[in-house]
């Protein structure tokens, strides 16, 4: 693979990371809750105390020194201290990472598989009833706020039918006989959050796959293959689908930002103890260091995913390397 291409993409990603750091720094410098502003609210704070606090947080230094200090802190893995949890931000985030990965990962796997299949079927049966149904499904789930879809599912499955639990990751206070009972309990709690997130993503993936496949089907090599006498099913499976899958790679990576947005909503609705719920709690309680830490982490994750997609795409499709 072309080295220059990788270096160019890496450089672009690093520039984006730098801009995100600057943005993050600027955003949280103008925030209303910096340590000084909180102290200033106390009318009895003496000038000495204010000056001391300024020095303590490095606020008496010029902005570029402060920015340097901020970067240095980040490289040491120091994201600050959470007001709300009274623990280092990095520790709080680390403890919430796994539930989110479990939830979002499962939803992604289901959505990619089902969405791609629906997309293929609807492109193949273009204009038929099944295409119309899947298209309407995609449009409606796209137009629906994710949290509202979650509320609908809860109203139906938990409140009316009482099949699945409404909140949390496991039944509170339950003593599990063995590992199997624990997994089963978490599994029951997982169904509705995963379903909500997956439904939203399925529509999106199905639409992208459908359009991509329709584009490919107008290519000359598909016509050639048909002219050679291959059956339509064979041409779609062996010639069209592999090429149509290419844009899916990019979409899945770009979608990570969307998945994170969906996770925030779903975790809020279901009180799922992950990063999304953590962010909601940080927002409601105006816990800025925690908010900044989560925002930085998800931004880096999304930039990383985009970089990987670029590289993978260049590897899969030789045309873009040039």
């Amino acid at each position, binding site marked *: 693979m072309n080295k220059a291409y990788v270096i160019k993409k890496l450089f*672009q990603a690093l*520039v*984006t990371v730098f*801009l*995100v750091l600057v*943005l993050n720094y600027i*955003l*949280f410098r*103008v*925030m*209303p809750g910096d340590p000084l502003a909180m102290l200033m609210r106390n009318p009895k704070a003496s000038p000495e105390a204010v000056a001391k606090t300024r020095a303590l947080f490095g606020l008496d230094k010029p902005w570029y020194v402060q920015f340097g200090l901020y970067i240095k802190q980040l490289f040491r893995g120091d994201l600050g201290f959470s007001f709300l949890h009274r623990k280092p931000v990095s520790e709080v985030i680390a403890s919430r990472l796994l539930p989110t990965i479990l939830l979002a990962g499962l939803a992604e796997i289901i959505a990619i598989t089902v969405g791609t299949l629906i997309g293929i079927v609807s492109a193949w049966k*273009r204009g038929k009833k099944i295409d119309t149904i899947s298209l309407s499904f995609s*449009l*409606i789930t*796209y*137009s*629906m*706020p*994710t*949290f*509202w879809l979650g*509320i*609908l599912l*809860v*109203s139906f499955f938990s*409140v*009316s039918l009482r099949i699945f639990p*409404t909140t949390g990751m496991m039944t509170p206070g339950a003593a599990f006989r063995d590992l199997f009972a624990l997994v089963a309990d978490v599994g029951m709690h997982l169904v509705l959050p995963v379903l909500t997130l997956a439904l939203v993503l399925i529509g999106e993936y199905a639409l992208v796959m459908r359009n991509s496949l*329709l*584009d490919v*089907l*107008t290519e000359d090599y598909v016509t050639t293959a048909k002219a050679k006498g291959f059956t339509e099913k064979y041409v779609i499976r062996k010639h069209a689908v592999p090429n149509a899958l290419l844009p899916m790679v990019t979409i899945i990576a770009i979608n*990570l*930002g*969307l998945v*994170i*947005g969906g996770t*925030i*909503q779903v975790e*809020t*609705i279901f009180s799922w103890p992950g990063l999304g719920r953590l*962010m*909601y709690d940080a*927002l*409601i309680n*105006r816990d*800025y260091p925690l*908010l*900044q830490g*989560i*925002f930085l982490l*998800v*931004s880096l994750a*999304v*930039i990383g995913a*985009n970089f990987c997609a670029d590289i993978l795409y260049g590897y899969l499709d030789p045309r873009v390397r040039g």
Partner: protein
Amino acid sequence: MDRKASAKVRRKKTRDFFTSLRKNKMGMAGCVMLALFVFMAFFGPLLLPYNPMVFGNAEDVFAPPSPGHPLGKDDMGRDVLGALIAGSRISLAVGILATLLSMVVGTCIGIVAGYYGGRVDMLLMRFTDVFLVLPWLPLMLVLAAILGSSVWNIIMVIGLTSWAGTARVVRAQTLSIKEKQFVERARAIGAGSVHIMIRHILPNAFPLVFANTILVSAVAILSETTLSFLGMGDPLHPSWGMMLHFAFESGAASIGAFWFLFPPGLCVVAVVLAFTFLGYAFDEILNPKLKRR
């Protein structure tokens, strides 16, 4: 002379566009749905016989639908239909203003980047990429938390985070327009850059900007709903998202007060769907490549 001719062509194209739109089923459905909601926002309050913001007594809390109050009452004993109509004004206004802001920012950045090219282009596009890449909801939430909850801040937050796609599209269009002969001619007779950008490039890039407006409107309304639901809305100007926030926080789902939970969400879905339909119709009309399939 040259510009007059191109203006004439544009007028004819506009006419053709509306003829095609009238024939497009999805487009017309979107138009009708939007018209209904605009009517609701403008005239709804006049048709209501009571003040929707009046709090009820204890027995009014979560009162189910009745003849006088077809959608029942909310967690504070207020009429849900009244709140829904009041909310339509906020939701639509915020969505439209945020979209306008986003269009202005996106179009300016796109045209300037495309027209000047070189280092300006590179800088602006890197900047655009940052906004394109950053996770959309966390970015808006962080901005909203820092700026504080007011209707204007929400408009700013949505407008300033959703322009990147427009900027890209407009830049690409500008790149092709600026190579056209009439731009070269204008430059030859001494037209300045700003003049060319406003009088020659902008009118020709406009159809694309317009099609983009529709798509961004859908996103803006969804964003407003989500932000308000997550507690970043303006409590003094309750939108549909804010209603859903109160419905969720008051446990309307577990009480089974579906009349409070479903209507605001349905309205959001209908409006976003209307914009999406229109967007699809525009795409089909303006993008001839789709017709081939």
